[in-house]
């Protein structure tokens, strides 16, 4: 890996140049304290100090709703062509990059999901360091740092960004304006070290995940699930904002005039009542406590059993979003006690 530094004031020039060569997507401020990923429309709209966007970057690979194919009574099955240009997403924090890594695994296990991968393969990432707020749980989930997935990663120092160049694509981007980048000095390296230490000491929220998989299994019948399920509204917000929740439903709609059927898929939530309902009326997870519990079990154990990694990246979106004020840290603490 190569490391370079770039003067912070030159970031607009760099992003302008990247935008000329790729489709650039950046975080923008939306409401008072809300952020969202948008196509680049000039540097003045780019947010560089923000924590989490409302909707995570999964939207770019798994859109909330997406057409799979069209077919009519007589035609062949036609898969819509995806003519999107190569995209670069700027401003991804470590947790969201981990989230993409988890989705990559999920959409590869048992065979590649071609719809996910045809977009994912045409996307590069510029990561950006961040400082935690009261919702950030990444340190506990071991996702506060990342060494792969990205093409470039920018660590914010006082005057410069320390730039980690991970891939040839990252190098290509650097070479679009080589004059902006140079070798890090000893002083910058020292500052980088100080910053890491400083950041580590800023985490106020800690979730103890020691032997959590065992505990969740042992406490499968705990009253805790019942208690929380009375508070939960089953609105599914926590699922929609989660960078690693991937569930979807598949539908058909037919245009009566043209007789063309479109098959499409849409995000779904395991919290929904008929999520596990089968024909004949049997529901494998109908009761509220069962549905509430399932999300925790799947986040913390299910995926980890297969890929050695919990699917919670600690991004804090669910806790910040939940209208009932349900907080994963609190739930896990209740299980521990």
């Amino acid at each position, binding site marked *: 890996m190569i490391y370079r530094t770039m003067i912070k004031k030159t970031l607009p020039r760099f992003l302008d140049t990247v935008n000329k060569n790729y489709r650039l997507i950046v975080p923008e401020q939306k409401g008072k304290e809300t952020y969202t990923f948008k196509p680049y429309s000039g540097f003045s709209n780019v947010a560089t100090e923000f924590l989490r966007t409302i909707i995570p970057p999964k939207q770019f690979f798994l859109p909330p709703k997406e057409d799979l194919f069209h077919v009519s009574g007589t035609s*062949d099955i036609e898969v819509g062509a995806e003519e999107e240009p190569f995209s670069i997403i700027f401003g991804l924090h470590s947790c969201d990059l981990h989230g993409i890594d988890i989705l990559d695994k999920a959409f590869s296990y048992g*065979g*590649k999901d071609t*719809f996910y991968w045809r977009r994912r393969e045409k996307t590069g990432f510029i990561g950006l360091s961040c400082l935690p707020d009261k919702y950030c749980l990444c340190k506990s989930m071991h996702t506060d740092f990342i060494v792969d997935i990205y093409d470039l990663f920018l660590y914010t120092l006082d005057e410069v960004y320390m730039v980690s160049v991970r891939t040839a694509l990252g190098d290509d981007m650097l070479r679009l304006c080589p004059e902006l980048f140079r070798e890090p000095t000893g002083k910058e390296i020292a500052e980088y070290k100080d910053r890491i230490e400083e950041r580590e000491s800023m985490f106020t929220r800690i979730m103890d995940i020691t032997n959590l998989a065992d505990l969740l299994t042992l406490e499968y019948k705990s009253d805790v699930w019942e208690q929380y399920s009375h508070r939960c509204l089953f609105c599914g917000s926590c699922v929609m904002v989660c960078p690693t929740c991937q*569930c979807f439903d598949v539908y*058909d709609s037919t245009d009566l005039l043209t007789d063309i*059927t479109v098959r499409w898929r849409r995000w779904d939530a395991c919290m929904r009542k008929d999520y596990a309902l089968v024909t004949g009326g049997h529901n*494998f997870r109908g009761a509220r406590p*069962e549905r509430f519990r399932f999300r925790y079990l799947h986040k913390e154990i*299910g995926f980890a059993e297969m890929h050695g990694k919990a699917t919670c990246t600690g991004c804090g979106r669910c806790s910040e979003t939940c209208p009932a004020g349900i907080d994963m840290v609190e739930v896990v603490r209740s299980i521990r006690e």
Partner: protein
Amino acid sequence: MSLVPELAILVEKRYLDAQHSLFRFVFNDEDRRKAFSFKPGQFVMLSIFGVGEAPISITSGPDEKGFIDLCVRKAGRVTGVLHELEENARVGIRGPYGNGYPVETMEGGNLLIVAGGLGIAPLRSLIRYVLFRRERFGEVGIGYGARDPESVLFYGEMQNLLERTDINCMLSVDSVPENSRWQGQVGRVTQLLDKITMPLEGTSVAVCGPPVFYKFVLDKLLKLGYSKGSIYMSLERRMECGLGKCGHCVVGHKYTCIDGPIFTYWDAINLPEIF
């Protein structure tokens, strides 16, 4: 391509009973027709365009090439419309999906097959696999239970099996209505298991049927002394993709669609929410 089916034609429809019919499909594409191969216990996602998709076990045998037979119960939207389709109708098929029965492990040993109702659908494929290479198996026993004589699926084929001396096949029905003729056993399918005696060592047991059926049959098999690791069951779950992506079929840490639908009883009881 994932999630995108291939066009197929319904070439034959055979009425089995008021709820079930046997449907034969062939792919439009001739190369695909030849190349399609599968293991007993695998399923396909059957599409009726404009209606949706449903996971259905392949009921033909893997040695029968060129077509796919599905035995389907009229249960809801997709399966309902399927029963209305005329021959030559266009459908979509993708697959085969799932792990299927571990036939390589089963070969060389004895095999006990226990089916309840529509559970015969995937097991019929396994039976056909066995009949095609009977010499590779030791003792073979088949117990099939249905509600009443009317609802015994594939009655003619079962009759042939009853007559064979190299297979110990027995049928039973829960009850026989008046004015109905029945020469087989009457009672629960579990009673057949007392009669189809197999050595406990070296016998694999393949079980498929509705939830209550599992409850009784598994209980009985354990009482008889079979190991949980030698009992193979097929799980039913809601499925939207069949590819391990949509999440709907997850049980514990497994995807029924790709890690299953065939699980040993031992594996199954280690998954929470199994029944």
